């Protein structure tokens, strides 16, 4: 074999066309349904049938006659509140984990957080409902808020803790030796460096709580509809063209948020497989 080592490495590294084809197929599987929806959102037929007739009427309907806007706004409000609170409490907890935690307490807290995202939300949501009923809150906006907060805190905590642990502790020491109190050191040195992670965590918390259908399903009072709940009732009716328009808008906003996350420097948008808790 006379191939140079560099060439051999390149050959070995190169993927077979078969693999690349499989990648293409997989991406097709992932995106074709979404593309079809986007495509149909511009289609005039109210039943989703061909032939294709381009129109923007569904987008107009979305903002005028459809009753999707109300639930969307409610979802936005709740998710924003939950995300901001998750950012605050999650960052505080992350600082505790990094600097002040005793090994036992820290481990326990981590397990609690992991449970919030690994236990199927069907079971967790139902269990939450039981407890909310028992303490008198029952189905209510407060319950939704608490439930969503509990399931988004883990994301913020794990992202911020990972960043905290990668920060050089000497930076804090340097600030202290120059006369900064522990609080001032955190405020002026650690916090600015944590900001991208905190913002990323907040954005992810926002998206996760916006989309968390199951928790909302079990904890929402009858009559209150967030967007996922509204979509749920609509789906059981069947095809809905202005839903296509809404879906397209949501997918676009998701793309934008992902771009922002990437710009903030979060690898794989901070998801499992990339960032490990």
């Amino acid at each position, binding site marked *: 074999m006379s191939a140079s080592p560099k060439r051999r490495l390149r050959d070995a590294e190169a993927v077979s066309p078969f693999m690349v084809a499989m990648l293409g197929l997989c991406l097709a599987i992932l995106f074709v349904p979404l593309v079809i929806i986007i495509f149909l959102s511009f289609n005039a037929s109210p039943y989703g049938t061909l032939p294709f007739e381009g129109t923007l009427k569904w987008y107009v309907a979305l903002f005028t006659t459809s009753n999707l806007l109300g639930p969307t706004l409610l979802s936005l409000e709740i998710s924003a509140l939950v995300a901001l609170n998750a950012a605050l*409490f999650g960052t505080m907890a992350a600082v505790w984990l990094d600097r002040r935690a005793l090994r036992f307490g820290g481990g326990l807290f981590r397990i609690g957080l992991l449970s919030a995202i690994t236990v199927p939300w069907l079971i967790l949501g139902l269990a939450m409902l039981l407890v909310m009923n028992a303490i008198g809150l029952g189905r209510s906006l407060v319950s939704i808020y608490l439930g969503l907060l509990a399931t988004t805190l883990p994301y913020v905590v794990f992202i911020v803790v990972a960043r905290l642990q990668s920060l050089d502790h000497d930076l804090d020491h340097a600030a202290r030796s120059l006369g900064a109190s522990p609080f001032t050191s955190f405020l002026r040195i650690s916090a600015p460096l944590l900001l991208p992670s905190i913002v990323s965590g907040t954005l992810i918390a926002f998206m996760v709580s916006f989309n968390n259908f199951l928790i909302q399903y079990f904890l929402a009072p009858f009559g209150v509809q967030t967007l996922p709940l509204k979509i749920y009732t609509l789906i059981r009716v069947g095809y809905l063209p202005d839903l296509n328009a809404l879906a397209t808008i949501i997918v676009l906003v*998701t793309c934008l948020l992902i771009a922002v996350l990437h710009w903030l420097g979060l690898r794989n948008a901070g*998801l499992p497989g990339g960032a490990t808790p």
Partner: protein
Amino acid sequence: MTKRRLLQALTTPILLLPAALVVALMVVIPLAVLVWYSFAPDGPGAPLSLGSYRRMVASPLYGWLALKTLWTAGIAALITTAIAWCPAWALSRLRARTRNLILLAIVIPYLTSYLLLIYSIYVVLGPGSPMMALPRLIGFAGTGASILYTPAATVVMLVYENLPLMIFVLFSGMQRIEGTLLAAAGSLGAGRWSRIRHIVFPMSAPALVSGLVMVFVPMGGAFVESQILGGPNGLLLGNVIADQMTRADDPSFGSALSLLLLLGTLALSGLVSLVGPTLEWLRNERRTRDVRLA
């Protein structure tokens, strides 16, 4: 204790308090209550008994339902793995720029509300949709037919939902396999498929197992998917649990079923996780035996 240490001791709990309270109230206590209720068929005040569990065992329906659910989730998990494996490997060998772009693209369906995903699969699988045109042309399906409202649709949905996650987990495991290892194998005479069989697959096996577990557990708890897409034969344990807890208003029975589901999925996941270490142990036993004989 100096004033400084005192201040530090006071502020420490404040940092943790809000998050810990929320987690305790909405995660720890509910799970504990779930366990408790499952032993309290006559209401919270009454003495504990195994009534709910007996009821569960009395009818073969629930056991069968549990098996069906685990089976569905298992198939879906395996299909997801099969579909995601090659793409993950291809991704791990691509150049950084292309790779990151594709990864970001994959995040889009991951972060999209799964109801919207369900809706899009619903549209895609519907009889009028362009997707079904192809199988109809081949003669695979008659006009108006589709796999919508069958258990197969549930499986399709579960696979679709979890594909991104599986790709990420497999990718992160495969990324660690350095190209130099493959080059070394190549120089020793291993062809492409040999390299995959002897190097890539064994080294990425832990990631594969952890991916399987990560998707299997939530799949076991599926209920919206089966409710919307599964049709009359697609009922899963998740549906029954939701029913019992909300409409039938028998929290004890529902709790017992929930624990059954949870323990079932965890047990199966645990077994799968043990496959790797067990095989390794067997291989070591064989090696030492061979050495002794030699």
